[in-house]
């Protein structure tokens, strides 16, 4: 495969491991062991069984008839919103917690933005009986209260991140500091394809089940195992990495990555890292980053807490710079409208993150009969307040 990491964890110029020496032992331990453990039969059996019996996989590939009619293409929705806990995030947390157990770790930490990764982590911690601490930006705790309640009910301790912008970036900083301070018993379950090597590669592997299933489902439903286009939203980029994974080397598949345009690309209030970012280091890897001329990280903005991140996974930075993916941005308003449209046409309320991917349908031209898969990464229950406050319903 062309789009994998080298020995130091770089995809082309992006990735690597830029961490204080304090994290070296833990990260090196993970680098040394993750593939060895993940590739064992014992791990794969337990992982696959849980994905099937607990998460409810495979997730359906749904031919969205009315949406297809409107856009004049064959549009399929990959229904990650139907997973247990309501998003793709759980594919990764199951993988990482099984790894944590096999590495003898007893305490789990994680960061969360919208709360979906926090809930998915608290869920698998409950499932395995491990202690769990979730870091969440104070601001995100206020705008995602149902998910905070879910994590607490699942037995996790939710610690507010009160520094900086009090959102996902700061929650990640706090989780990394926790790991520095607890080097022996703690496993850090990162929620996206970000962080020092091997996290981007490891998380992409755990999420790759999305494209693996798509291949089989497309073959069964269309007679061809690949689509013409895949559309996915990108914050850190884990759902996109999973949806692209097995199609990365197939240049016939156009990959369309949708970033959060917030109030507009030029408004100074967006999270469109691929467009506005420049090379930099955030949370342990070299990637594209929204920053000022002094390298200070700029506070991002999006109506969607899950896309409100100033960086992007290094794989995506590489895909952008090599031209393998086409970047599109959707504003808050475009995402809200696309979310409402899907609800009214297909009876599916999407997460605001996924609504950004849907908004791209308006910006693309389709040939008739073109096969388009939109990765519907999560469901909209958590976003009801935001939808209601912003749409005149």
């Amino acid at each position, binding site marked *: 495969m062309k789009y994998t990491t080298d020995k130091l964890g770089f995809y082309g110029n992006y990735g690597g491991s830029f*961490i*204080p*020496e*304090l994290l070296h032992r833990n990260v090196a331990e993970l680098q040394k062991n993750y593939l060895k453990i993940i590739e064992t039969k014992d791990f794969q059996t337990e992982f696959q069984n849980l994905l099937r019996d607990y998460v409810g996989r495979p997730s359906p590939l749904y031919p969205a008839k009315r949406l297809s009619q409107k856009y004049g293409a064959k549009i399929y929705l990959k229904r990650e919103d139907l997973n247990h806990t309501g998003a793709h995030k759980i594919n990764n947390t199951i993988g990482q917690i099984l790894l944590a157990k096999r590495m003898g770790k007893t305490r789990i930490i994680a960061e969360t933005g919208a709360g979906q990764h926090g809930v998915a982590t608290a869920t698998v911690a409950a499932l395995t009986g491990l202690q769990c601490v979730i870091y969440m930006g104070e601001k995100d705790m206020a705008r995602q209260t149902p998910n905070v309640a879910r994590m607490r009910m699942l037995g996790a301790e939710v610690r507010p991140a009160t*520094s900086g912008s009090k959102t996902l970036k700061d929650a990640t900083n706090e989780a990394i500091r926790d790991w*520095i301070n607890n080097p022996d018993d703690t496993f850090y379950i990162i929620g996206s394809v970000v962080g020092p090597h091997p996290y981007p590669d490891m998380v992409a592997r755990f999420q790759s089940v999305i494209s693996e299933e798509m291949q089989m489902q497309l073959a069964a439903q269309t007679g061809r195992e690949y689509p013409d286009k895949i559309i996915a939203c990108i914050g850190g980029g884990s759902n996109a990495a999973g949806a692209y994974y097995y199609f990365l080397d197939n240049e016939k598949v156009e990959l369309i990555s949708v970033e959060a345009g917030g109030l507009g690309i030029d408004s100074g209030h967006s999270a469109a890292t691929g467009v506005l970012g420049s090379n930099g*280091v955030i949370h342990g890897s070299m990637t594209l980053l929204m*920053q000022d001329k*002094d390298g200070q990280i700029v506070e991002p903005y999006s109506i969607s807490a899950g896309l409100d991140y100033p960086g992007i996974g290094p794989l995506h930075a590489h895909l952008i710079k090599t031209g393998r993916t086409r970047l599109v941005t959707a504003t808050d308003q475009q995402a809200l409208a696309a979310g409402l449209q899907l609800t009214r046409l297909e009876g599916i309320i999407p997460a605001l993150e996924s609504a950004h991917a849907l908004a791209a349908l308006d910006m693309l031209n389709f040939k008739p009969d073109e096969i388009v898969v939109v990765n519907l990464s999560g469901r909209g229950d958590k976003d009801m307040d935001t939808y209601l406050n912003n749409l005149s319903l």
Partner: protein
Amino acid sequence: MSRLQKLFNNKQNLLSIYLTAGYPQRNAMLELIPLLAKNGVDFIEAGMPYSDPLADGKTIQHSSSIALKNGMNLELYFKQIKQVRYKTDIPILFMGYFNQVLKYGIESFLQQCSDSGIEALIIPDLTPEIYQKYYQKIFKKYDLGLSFLITPTTSDERIALIDSLTTAFIYVVSISGTTGKTDDFSAKQIAYFKRIKKLTTRNPKMIGFGIDTASKYRIVNTYADGAIIGSAFIKAISDNDYKQKAVDFVRKIKS
């Protein structure tokens, strides 16, 4: 020979103070560095505040955020270092995060350090392997020292690698944790200091992180060439009377 090397050759029980540029006031560094030099501090780590300081605890996170609000930026940082250079020849090190160096342009950054009279750099999130493969060649063009960190979980083998890349001193982190811890040294930490003392390295060793009292300062000096104090100093100089507080702090540590 650099001022820093001379210092290590000629003196023991060194005291290095970390300060955050722009804290507690925008121009504080201009007065603090000469004052610290006059009061027996051996060298200075001038921290350029960063928006996302991963290795730092609450105290330095706070001072960094205040300093940025006070308008500290790299242009001002280098300007102030140059001004300080007219007043004192105490060795000054740049301390900051790799993204700051990268964004500025590595060569331009190193040139600026050189022109401003900075002796060496400490960049905690620049990992030895990546430095060796991608950046060592560039750094070698400049006559600047570079310090790497070791921690209680760094193996002897890895310390040897770090020693081979280091060109200033080995920064011995006293604990497995972020900056600013105030607990007494544990038996495990003392055992670690003893292990480090026995290791023969090319470079001198300075112990830092969590050193906040005269007694801890004395203890670490029996195991290394000196001590680095950051958070405790930052805490001590938080108000308007920061100059007097800085002098009092150094006197207390050296008592």
